[in-house]
């Protein structure tokens, strides 16, 4: 350790420093007011409007809209798709983060960039590529038709498109976290005789659990809310290939605004729960990092 932390001397004139590096009170207030006003207009107002419109025709109409068979089947399909796409991307995310963060190899940065690719692709194109692969005129289309397997305009295509769109979430969350943590703890466990899996479960997982949860939450939110990609590969058949976001669109286009917003409010609640969990996880993560730093500090002092 070459850097020496110097406690900042007590300033004789804290006010003066504050004035020099801070803004005058009226500027502070104006900036805060403009920022909060902007956020209220762009983010909070649309949020409030969803619930206002959802209950525009009363609570019983609201309950009818979300208990209607088509809405329920859309909800089931949304859950089904997320329950397939998220675990697949969990395995991929952990595997990718493991090889990238724990080993050195050539082409690593290319691999990281490739993982990010789905984020750079428009949702519409993300859906379209599966039509080009499995659609009637696609690469595998004729073969699938001969064997009577339907992927496009059916549930498998929607699962594929959702999996593609949500692929980077967990890997992206884990890679920087695990890179920061290094390999020392795992190496110690292995040297002491632990097996590979044992090391992963007992050493790595406890260290990354909050980051992993964070990635899972974001991945799930996107899987349940994806619209563009799923829209391209869905047959838009009510009760069959409609997810909740697609159901919102259908109702809205039929001018059933209250019902559309009622279903939308369910998705909005999901988003709010996601945000709450995310905030909680971030807070735990920061606290865990703080404890870690406290625990590391004495060791580092000895090492120095």
């Amino acid at each position: 350790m070459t850097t020496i932390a110097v406690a900042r001397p007590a300033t004789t004139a804290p006010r003066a420093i504050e004035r020099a590096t801070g803004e005058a009170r009226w500027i502070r207030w104006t900036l805060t007011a403009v920022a909060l006003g902007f956020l209220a207009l762009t983010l909070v107002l649309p949020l409030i409007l969803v619930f206002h419109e959802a209950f525009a025709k009363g609570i019983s109409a609201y309950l009818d809209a979300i208990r209607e068979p088509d809405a329920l089947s859309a909800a089931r399909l949304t859950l089904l798709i997320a329950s397939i796409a998220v675990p697949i991307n969990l395995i991929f995310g952990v595997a990718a983060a493991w090889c990238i963060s724990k080993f050195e190899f050539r082409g690593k940065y290319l691999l990281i960039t490739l993982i990010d690719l789905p984020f750079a692709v428009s949702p519409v194109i993300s859906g379209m590529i599966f039509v080009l692969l499995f659609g009637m005129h696609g690469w595998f289309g004729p073969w699938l038709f001969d064997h009577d397997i339907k992927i496009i305009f059916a549930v498998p295509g929607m699962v594929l498109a959702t999996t593609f769109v949500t692929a980077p979430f967990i890997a992206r969350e884990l890679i920087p976290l695990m890179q920061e943590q290094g390999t020392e703890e795992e190496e110690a466990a292995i040297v002491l005789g632990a097996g590979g899996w044992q090391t992963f479960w007992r050493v790595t997982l406890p260290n990354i659990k909050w980051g992993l949860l964070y990635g899972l939450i974001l991945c799930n939110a996107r899987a349940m809310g994806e619209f563009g990609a799923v829209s391209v590969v869905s047959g838009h058949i009510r009760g069959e290939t409609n997810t909740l976001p697609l159901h919102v669109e259908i109702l809205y286009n039929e001018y059933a605004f209250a019902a559309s917003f009622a279903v939308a409010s369910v998705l909005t609640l999901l988003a709010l729960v996601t945000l709450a969990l995310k905030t909680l996880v971030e807070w735990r993560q920061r606290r865990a990092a703080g404890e870690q730093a406290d625990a590391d500090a004495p060791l580092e002092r000895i090492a120095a």
Partner: protein
Amino acid sequence: MRRSSRSVLPGFGVSLGITCTYLSLMVLLPLATIFTRTADLSWDSFWGTVTNPRVLASYRVTFGASLVAALVNTVFGLLVAWVLVRYRFPGRRLVDAIVDLPFALPTAVAGISLTTLYASNGWVGRYLEPFGLKVAYTWVGITVALIFIGLPFVVRTVQPVLDDLEVDVEEAAASLGARRWQTFTRVVLPTIAPALLTGFALAFARAIGEYGSVVFISGNMPMKTEIVPLLIITKLEQYDYAGATAVALVMLVASFALLLGINLMQWAARRRVGGAGV
């Protein structure tokens, strides 16, 4: 790919195998279809498709609105990040959490909500209508939706950099006689400029591909308010696969160029920060 140094840790082969197989089958193979499909077209018909007047108009709408939205987000995103990092006010944590709303809210929900808000009888639209400003079903509406979608990208890129900024430098500037505004433009802004640029690029990249939040508010008039992603869908629905892939290829190249630019910028920023530390 070869490991350059031996490690005692197990699982390299398996994890790299899973990663590469998955990326190849799930990401690269599907994306490759766009290139092979376009290769079926002759150069003339490809060029004819991607420079068709209606397609050119949709580029103008998409890139124009995305640019304006990303610029607005750069200004307000910096302001929001600054206020969140530097000032203390009641409810700050709640405000900080709500910034991520566009990441969590399904785009279709954002789309119908913004459309209702800015329609001529909507909560906001009715106050703009008397001034002759129509938002929903116009170019302005598309921009409003893209501002909603892109805001967190700028805030979340700039915020950590502002957080790490040492106040010492600002104190030094102040003690050397710099005015507050001078300190901001000469000391703070250059330091956060790479992050700000990255945030702008991320917001812009997201905006050009955005579909769900825009398609409701845009009105979808060909030549006027038709965005590129919608045009691709329209071509697909007409079974014009060749046309759809040709336009998609143009968008894909634009997106990849942006992604490359963003990665290069972050790499350069890391190197600069790393260089300063040694």
